[in-house]
């Protein structure tokens, strides 16, 4: 059905001149890179100027460069004929498929599309399909697309979207070159000046020029004598030395130099090639970026959109922005993976167009992965006084610190308020947190419950869980506050099991033995009992003495065994109240501007002797009470005006 490519019509046999240089350059570019340079390439010229030759030359060159390419050359009439035949045979689809698989389609005589609506639609569809598949289309016509009568607007814009080049009538020099080449091909030689004389005749196209050459070749063959210039003109029916048309001006140029117009055309065609490369270079860059990032598993829809556009603005910026987004995604993914391996590999981290979602997802993970509340640094283990009453608890704590999760798990510190449970809990936490890679969650049960409620409220229970699951130790103060908090107990139960399974330390404090706490579920209470329940009793004298030392030091009270003994002997039920005692004594001493002593302490704590007031004569009259309030004689109103006077006063 399709014409075969005529081997005589190649680039080698095509005589290039100013009038067709652009078209030839474009043609060879297309042959070298089918589908990527100018697509479609639309060549138009008057009849007989080499359209068909150029089309076939493109086909040959492409085939030579890539023998596997499927190249179809056909005239529009052949295309129409084939289409009609296929339709008649009910094989329309086969026909379409056949042309859609062509790597380079060369269609000649496109001007015959006039008045063929159905063929125009068919060709439009084919053009679109081929362009999308990156296959080359080269069209030839005797007029530019816009001048083909009755041509579909869409086809016009499609044809014009690639490169539209024309081939003009060859100039004098080109004509001479063509004549010489053809004469040589025929093995005929002429006297000098003959071909030049023929070339001076302005034939409208190369075909007629060939006809002229044929005539003088024939004439010379018939006559034995070589034909001369004058005879040639006569043979061709041109009298005298009269020259016609455009050719006349050319020979006036200085010999050895190309004509002026040629110089510009040459320049134009060179610039065209350079521009073509430059302008199309962006496509190459985009495609390269698409390939690269697709290979790395990122969605490249945004870049592909660029390729669909004819003239995207600021391609490099777009690519740079894309790369930047990808880098950001990479960073986010790495961060998230480190925090929570489960969220890694999410699609959202591979689509730069969903960067915001990825940021949000990462933020969620990050928040969830934010370290859970840490133990308070205000309760160091060093500052914890120990004595017989809390010996068990302190020893257990040291064991836990030495081997977290191994020995006593869970450890439950039991004791009344103010006995130092919280201090010990935090002290354990601080020590545990010193270990490498340790994440210690240490907080009050109330804060634990509040966090869970906030998480439920914010629909973020998962990150809340994740946050605590990352911890290597969980220390909860005042576990009895869990009473009645079913959901928290549920969560704690799960957490509990996970920690136990993973040998991670759990420490709790409670005011009483877990199984006596009301409102605590049996399963939790029994688990708490399953570890070590260490009681902290009321501080004994030894512990009080031990506790007093840092307390007094803290208030910069000089060491005074009598004072220490006196204070240690005071009956106090907790370290907290002991702290209160010291506080009162120290404040009283400061108020009286006297050193802290056992006597003063006794005075403050057991009731003041009468002499107290007199000793205060040196003072300014301001007496600071142990409660810290201010009472000043001068500031007291002793005589209130009678109520009646006050009313009158106000009425005025």
């Amino acid at each position, binding site marked *: 059905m399709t014409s075969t490519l005529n081997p005589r019509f190649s680039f080698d046999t095509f005589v290039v001149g100013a009038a067709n240089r652009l078209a030839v350059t474009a043609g060879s570019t297309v042959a070298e890179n089918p589908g990527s340079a100018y697509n479609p390439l639309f060549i138009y010229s008057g009849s007989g100027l080499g359209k068909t030759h150029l089309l076939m030359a493109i086909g040959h060159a492409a085939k030579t460069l890539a023998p596997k390419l499927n190249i179809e050359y056909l005239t529009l009439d052949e295309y129409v004929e084939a289409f009609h035949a296929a339709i008649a045979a009910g094989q329309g689809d086969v026909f379409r498929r056949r042309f859609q698989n062509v790597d380079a389609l060369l269609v000649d005589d496109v001007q015959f599309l006039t008045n063929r609506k159905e063929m125009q639609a068919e060709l439009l569809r084919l053009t679109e399909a081929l362009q999308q598949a990156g296959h080359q289309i080269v069209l030839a016509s005797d007029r530019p697309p816009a001048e083909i009568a009755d041509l579909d607007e869409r086809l016009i814009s499609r044809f014009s979207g690639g490169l539209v080049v024309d081939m003009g009538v060859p100039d004098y020099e080109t004509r001479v070159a063509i004549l010489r080449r053809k004469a040589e091909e025929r093995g005929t030689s002429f006297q000098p000046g003959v071909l030049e004389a023929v070339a001076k005749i302005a034939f409208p196209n190369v075909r007629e020029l060939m006809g002229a050459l044929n005539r003088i070749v024939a004439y010379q063959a018939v006559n034995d004598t070589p034909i001369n210039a004058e005879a040639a003109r006569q043979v061709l029916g041109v009298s005298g030395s009269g020259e016609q048309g455009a050719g006349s001006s050319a020979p006036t140029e200085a010999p050895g130099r190309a004509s002026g117009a040629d110089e510009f055309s040459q320049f134009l065609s060179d*610039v065209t090639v350079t521009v073509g490369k430059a302008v*199309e270079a962006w496509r190459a860059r985009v495609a390269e970026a698409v390939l690269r990032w697709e290979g790395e598993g990122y969605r490249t829809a945004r870049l592909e959109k660029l390729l669909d556009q004819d003239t995207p*603005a600021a391609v*490099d910026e777009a690519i740079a922005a894309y790369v930047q987004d990808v880098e950001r995604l990479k960073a986010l993914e790495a961060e998230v993976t480190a925090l929570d391996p489960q969220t890694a590999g999410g699609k959202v981290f591979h689509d730069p167009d969903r960067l915001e979602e990825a940021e949000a997802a990462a933020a969620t993970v990050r928040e969830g992965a934010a370290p859970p509340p840490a133990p308070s640094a205000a309760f160091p283990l060093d500052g914890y006084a120990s004595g017989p009453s809390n010996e068990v608890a302190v020893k257990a704590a040291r064991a836990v610190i030495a081997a977290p999760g191994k020995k006593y798990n869970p450890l439950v510190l039991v004791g009344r308020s103010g006995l130092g449970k919280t201090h010990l809990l935090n002290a354990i936490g601080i020590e545990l947190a010193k270990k490498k890679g340790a994440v210690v969650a240490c907080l009050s049960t109330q804060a634990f419950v509040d966090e869970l409620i906030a998480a439920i409220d914010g629909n973020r229970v998962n990150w809340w869980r994740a946050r605590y699951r990352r911890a290597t130790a969980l220390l909860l103060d005042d576990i009895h506050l869990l009473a009645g908090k079913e959901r928290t107990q549920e969560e704690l139960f799960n957490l509990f099991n996970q920690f136990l399974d993973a040998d991670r330390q759990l420490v709790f404090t409670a005011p009483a033995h877990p199984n006596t706490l009301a409102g605590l579920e049996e399963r939790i209470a029994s688990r708490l009992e399953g570890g070590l329940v260490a009681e902290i009793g009321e501080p004994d004298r030894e512990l009080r003495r031990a506790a007093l030392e840092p307390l007094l030091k803290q208030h910069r009270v000089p060491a005074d065994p009598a004072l220490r003994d006196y204070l240690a002997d005071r009956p106090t039920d907790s370290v907290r109240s002991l702290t209160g005692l010291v506080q009162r004594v120290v404040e009283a001493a400061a108020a009286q501007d006297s050193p802290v002593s056992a006597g003063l302490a006794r005075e403050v704590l057991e009731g003041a002797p009468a002499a107290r007031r007199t000793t205060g004569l040196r003072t300014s009259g301001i007496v600071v009470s142990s409660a810290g309030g201010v009472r000043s004689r001068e500031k007291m109103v002793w005589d209130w005006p009678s109520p009646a006077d006050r009313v009158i006063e106000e009425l005025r």
Partner: protein
Amino acid sequence: MSLVNFTTREITCKIVYYGPGRSGKTTNLHYVYGRVPETRRGRMVSLATQTDRTLFFDFLPIDLGQISGFTTRFQLYTVPGQVYYNATRRLVLQGSDGVVFVGDSQARQLDENLESLQNLQSNLLEHGVDVRAMPLVMQYNKQDLPRELILTQPELDDALNFRGVPSFAADALHGTGVFETLKSISELVLKRLAAGSPA
């Protein structure tokens, strides 16, 4: 100045012919003007003194038509060569995409060439442009003069072309080397566009 405008599909190249006075910059433009088809060229603007020296500048717009869908225009400018028109030279240089240095091949003009070359460099610097970053070609004009008066292209290359940019021996009056020069500078300018740095 935007070399390539993707939204309006335009490519505009501003090329400045630079060089010492009487080296043939305007002659270059005249030759190009004479070879460009009438439909392709705009009016050549030339402000010359009574003695035909360029007073302000010459300007020749060339329309190369649609290339790869881009309306491509070249704007060729010359600067006045005389030393005392430096302000004008600087003005003309502003926003240029490429520079053709038209040198005078006469041996006795060598110093003027060097001076002008230095002037070009300093004027570009005033615009914050490094001469090394600017597409530049050298044209050694007046190669048609008697041999004893002129320096040859290798000699001039040695003296002037220390950056190793493309250089051309030319005879602007008769056109030798004019389009070669223009083509070379165009390629350099357009290649910069291909390199992805639309200024």
